C-alpha cells in the first residue's frame, strides 16, 4: 500500500466483491472460451445421444439474458463461425480419405460416445487409427495433403448458439478423464513425436493435423509447427518443410525450437542443395 493506512478486512472484501462478475467485463475472454467450447463440445453434440428426440428444435434458443445483451450476439456469432469452420475441415478430410466422420461413426456402434474427442494415449498411437474415437482416418496415400484443410469461412445458415444437446446423462466426464485442453494438445504432440522418433513420420501427420485443426493457436502451436517441419523433412517433402520453416521463423522468431527448425532446414539443403520445387 502506498499510504500508511491499512485497509480493513471489510474494505478488502468490498474490493473483491467489486470484481465484476458479469460477462461484459470479460467479453474478449468469453469470446475465446466460447469458441473453444464450440470445438470441444462439437463432436459430442453431433454424435452423442440425441436429446428427447420428439421435441421439435424449438426455433432459436435466445442466447443469453445478459443485462446489456451485447455479449450474446458477439459470442453467438463467434461460436457459430467456429462450429462451422470446425465442421468443414473435418468433413472435407472425410471426403479426401473416403471416410467421413459421421459416416464412419455411423458404421460403428456408438459405444464410445462419451469418450472425449481426443482419444486416450493408448488409442492414438499409430496403428490404432481405426479406433472409433478418432475423428479422422489416417491418410492412406502419400499424396494426401499433410496440412489441414483450410479453415474456410462458411456462410452461416444455422441458427444461433453453441452445441447444447443433452449429453449429460451418465457422464464419464470426471475431470481427470477430461483433462485440460492443454493435456489434449500434449497428447497429440506426444503421439506425433513418438511416431517420428520411431521412424514413422507418416503416422505423425495425423496427430499434427488434428492439433492444427483443433488448436490452430493452441498453447503448443509453436511446438506443433516445429515438429511439422521435422516430419515433412523426414518424409522428404522438402519444399513443404522449407515453406513451413520459413513461416515458423516469421511467426516465432525467438522460439526455443528455432535451432531445431534451422538445423532441419540445413539438413534439407545439405541433402538437396536447394529445396525442391513443389510437384
Amino acid at each position, binding site marked *: *500500500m*502506498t499510504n*500508511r493506512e*491499512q*485497509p480493513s*478486512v471489510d474494505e*478488502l*472484501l468490498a*474490493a*473483491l*466483491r467489486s*470484481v465484476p*462478475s458479469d*460477462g461484459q*467485463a*470479460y467479453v474478449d*475472454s*468469453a469470446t*475465446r*472460451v*466460447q469458441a473453444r*467450447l464450440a470445438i*470441444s*463440445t462439437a463432436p*459430442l*453434440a*453431433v*454424435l452423442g445421444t440425441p*436429446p428427447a*428426440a*420428439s*421435441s421439435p*428444435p*424449438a426455433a432459436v*434458443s435466445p*442466447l*443469453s*439474458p445478459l443485462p446489456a445483451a451485447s*455479449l450474446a450476439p458477439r459470442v*453467438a456469432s463467434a461460436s457459430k463461425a467456429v462450429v*462451422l469452420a470446425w*465442421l468443414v475441415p473435418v468433413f472435407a478430410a472425410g471426403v479426401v480419405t473416403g471416410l467421413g466422420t*459421421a459416416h464412419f*461413426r*455411423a*458404421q460403428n456402434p456408438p459405444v464410445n460416445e462419451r469418450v472425449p474427442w481426443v482419444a486416450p494415449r493408448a488409442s492414438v498411437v499409430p496403428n490404432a487409427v481405426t479406433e472409433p474415437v478418432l475423428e479422422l482416418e489416417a491418410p492412406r496415400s502419400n499424396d494426401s495433403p499433410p496440412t489441414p484443410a483450410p479453415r474456410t469461412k462458411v456462410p452461416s445458415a*444455422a*441458427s444461433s448458439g453453441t*452445441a*447444447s*444437446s*443433452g*449429453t*449429460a*446423462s451418465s*457422464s464419464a*466426464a470426471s*475431470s481427470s478423464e477430461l483433462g485440460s*485442453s*492443454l493435456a489434449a494438445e500434449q497428447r497429440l504432440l506426444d503421439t506425433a513425436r513418438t511416431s517420428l522418433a520411431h521412424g514413422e513420420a507418416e503416422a505423425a501427420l495425423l496427430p499434427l493435423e488434428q492439433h492444427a485443426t483443433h488448436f490452430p493457436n493452441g498453447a503448443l502451436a509453436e511446438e506443433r509447427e516445429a515438429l511439422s517441419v521435422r516430419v515433412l523433412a523426414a518424409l522428404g517433402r522438402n519444399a513443404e518443410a522449407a515453406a513451413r520453416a520459413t513461416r515458423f521463423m516469421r511467426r516465432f522468431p525467438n522460439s526455443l525450437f528455432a535451432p531445431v527448425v534451422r538445423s532441419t532446414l540445413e539438413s534439407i539443403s545439405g541433402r538437396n542443395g536447394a529445396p525442391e520445387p513443389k510437384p
Partner: protein
Amino acid sequence: MDGSGDAPQISTSMSKSEAVARMVAPAPGGDFDAIFGAEFGYVMRTLRFLGVPVSDLEDLTHDVFLHVFRHIAEYDPARPARPWLFVFALRTARDFRVRARHRYLSSDELPEVSDQRSLPDAILMRSQAQALALRALETLSEEERAVFVALELDELSAPELSERLEVPLNTVYSRLRRARENFANAARRLALQESYR
C-alpha cells in the same frame, strides 16, 4: 432450421445438415447458452478467487463450462445457477492445483503473469486493495478458501454450501471462522510488507 431435427438416434442417414441442426438444438435441462452468457464472468471471477492464476483462467473457465455442458441436464432451472456452478469451479480449481502443484509450491507469491492475450488481469487487479486481498486469499488453505469465497464473496448460504459440498454445517462454520482470522492476519502482514517496500 430445416425442421428435421427429430431424426431418431444416430442413424446412418444423418446428413450434415441434420448434424448441424442437432448441434444447435436446445438442451432439455438447463439452457447452456443462457448460463454461459449470464455466468461467464462469475465463473471466471470465482476461479480467480479460488486461486487460479490469471494465465490459466481462460483454460479453466473453458473446463468448467465443459463440465457444465455435460451436466446441463442435471441443472434445475428453478434454483439459482451460481451455487451449482460454484461446485464445478471448485472441483476444477482443485484438480488444477493438484496437477500444477509442482509449479506453485511457494503459494505466498502470485505467479508473474505476462498479459499478452489481453487477459482480464487489468480488471481483476484494478486496485491495490484487490491485489492485496487476492494475495491474502492465496494464503488460505484450500478448504478455508472455498468456504470463505462462497460465503463472504459469493453470498451463498452456509446451509446451501454444506449441502453442495456434502460437508457438515458445523464444519462449514468453523472453516469460515478460521478463514476469516487467517485472512485478516494475512492481510495485515501483507499490508505491512507492502508499506515498507
